[in-house]
């Protein structure tokens, strides 16, 4: 797509995608390239610091956040295939650095150019038809809006819009879609009984939706839901939105 030929986006791939779901990262790269974006990947990147920040270790989070500020200082756009990690950069970094004018200014500059994957496609690249990335998907899909994407970033319609335009894809409604899946980072291992209760309900609703695939924009939520689905020997697949948009992904 020549329209985007001048756009360069650096990926913040997130630690979860890097270490557990590299295929998702590959799909992100392919989709962006199909849309004409020049994709960069600062290779020193690791983790945004959210796991420690959410558990209350702000010093440790600060250490990791500083690295991210540094690595993406010169980026034109930063694209993150996770609502939660994008929210960490856009929202929580401003809290982390609110006592330091210089770093706060850097954090604000980074926040202003950081986008979650789906909102980057819809709001920056102005994709209004998923066919533009060559997407096609035969099957039924239901969408789980992850909490930080929905409530920290306010990204609600963008992923739906993309899914709706995927040729062949039939969307199924998900009851209680906006209810948390129970992941919550360290919450899931601090209070496994509550987390389990939450994911059990989520899984029941997904099964009731009749979809063969669950889609979300956060692999950590999908790790939680997918892990519970697998435990129940469910055949329902879990996919990141990028994998649905990427025709080369299986």
């Amino acid at each position, binding site marked *: 797509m020549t329209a985007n030929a001048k756009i360069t986006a650096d990926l913040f791939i997130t630690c979860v995608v890097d270490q557990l779901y*590299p295929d998702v990262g590959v799909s992100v790269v392919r989709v962006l390239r199909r849309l004409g974006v020049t994709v960069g990947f600062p290779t020193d990147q690791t983790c945004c610091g959210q796991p420690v920040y959410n558990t209350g270790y702000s010093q440790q989070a600060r250490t990791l956040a500083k690295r991210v500020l540094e690595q993406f200082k010169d980026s034109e756009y930063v694209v993150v295939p996770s609502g939660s990690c994008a929210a960490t950069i856009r929202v929580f970094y401003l809290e982390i650095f609110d006592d330091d004018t210089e770093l706060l200014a850097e954090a604000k500059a980074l926040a202003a150019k950081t986008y979650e994957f789906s909102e980057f496609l819809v709001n920056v690249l102005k994709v209004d038809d998923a066919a533009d990335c060559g997407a096609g998907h035969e099957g039924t899909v239901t969408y789980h809006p992850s909490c930080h994407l929905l409530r920290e970033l306010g990204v609600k319609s963008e992923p739906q819009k993309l899914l709706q335009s995927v040729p062949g894809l039939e969307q199924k409604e998900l009851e209680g879609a906006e209810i948390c899946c129970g992941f919550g980072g360290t919450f899931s291992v601090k209070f496994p009984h509550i987390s389990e209760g939450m994911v059990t309900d989520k899984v029941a609703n997904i099964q009731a939706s009749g979809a063969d695939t669950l889609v979300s924009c956060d692999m950590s939520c999908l790790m939680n839901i997918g892990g519970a689905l697998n435990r129940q020997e469910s055949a329902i697949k879990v996919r990141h939105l990028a994998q649905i948009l990427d025709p080369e992904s299986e």
Partner: protein
Amino acid sequence: MPEIKTQDFTAASTAAILDPKLRRALDRVAEGFHVARLDRIEEVTQDVWDGWKDQAREIKVHTIENLDYYLELLDKNVTAAGGQLHFAKDADEANEIVAHIVRTRNIKIVTKSKSMVSEELGLNPVLEALGVEVWETDLGEYIIQLAEETPSHLVAPALHKSKEDVAALFTEKLGIPYDEDIYHMAATARTILRDKFMEADLGISGANFVVAETGTLVIITNEGNGRLCTSAPRVHIGITGMEKVIPSMQDLSAFLRLLPRSATGQRITSYVSMTTGPRRSDDEDGPEEFHLILVDNGRSKMLADPALREALYCIRCGACLNICPVYSRIGGHAYGWVYPGPIGAVVSPMLVGLPKAKELPQASSLCGACREVCPVNIDIPKMLLDLRKKTAESPDSSLRSAPEIERVLARLYAKLMSSPKLLKMGVKFGRFAQKLERMTPVFSPLTTDGKWIRNAHIPILSRWTKSRDLPTLPKQTFHELWEKELSPDDS
């Protein structure tokens, strides 16, 4: 103060989650409130609703920033109306003010309308110790008083009880035949309480708001019991937190739109009762004395802390409880003290002391649903995070919420993630361990089938795999894939 059981959160929530009856009750009531609330918003449109919320929040911000001024104004106007304002710094002081009135006015029977603050003070046992008969007159409160329990929800105190539970309770405590017809049960309570309203010498009420410019106490109820408590007995004591003051009657209207809609999904409650001072000479009825007790009991600590101050804006509508995926699984009692749910996880630690309730701020997935529904836009997740910060790294070990190992792990994590090299080695080691495990079933910290870890026998991970599988490490990281095949340098 009532017994503090916030320390037992894990055990209590584990037991609660296994109680199917509780879950049904929670689903039924919370869902009903939640759906009705959404209907009310749709009716007025989201934009208008958001405008109302912003306006209400502005009033709260302004009042709390100028609390000393409005408390003085309130004092002046309560006195001008012939009433008396008392200020209590803690539960003991508040209870002693009530006890003093009871002793000096020869009080024998007390009727109470719903008051979370009196629960917070543990007032009923104090009154009973004075030999006074105490009657809770809100139906839900009456039920839990009979059952000798504590409220489990801010607006529906007996939410955890089914109608069968209540029928059995009435049979046991009132000696009447078992009858689970809700109207019959309500009628029974009504008949008993009607007499008590007339016999009572003292009526104690809470307050949803107190209006500074007029000295008026405002309560909103659906049963009219509040009106009877505040007008029939010869003495009326209103008890509430000092943050409940609002500047003017006009401000009140902003909250009257929001509170019923947020709490139960009603446009307005059946009764909005306003009391200004005792009966005037030309009034036909009303109490001879009006006392208003404003309680601090830890609130000034919240006021002094900019990160937690907004907890004082809470109008106790309960919407954050109804929407909370944690509350809706464990109910109110698991939180171990008077205030449950997301806002309780902020307020309780501040009121009972963080060392005793340090687990509560952890018990949230930080999904943000509470903030979204709050009629005064209170950022509860942010405050939970702040409390987590206060408990994670405090030099005071009584404040630290997690075992020492967590701090070590947090530091280790930051070290590992600060060094891409170290991380690479870590991942390689992980893959090796995974392979080793597959080859030598004797050394088996993990049970995997190649793709999934089904059962981890190592701490922390085992908590995950109790009910969920965990993906194993794939052959390559994204970093490796990028370098090998994705980087534009290669193509």
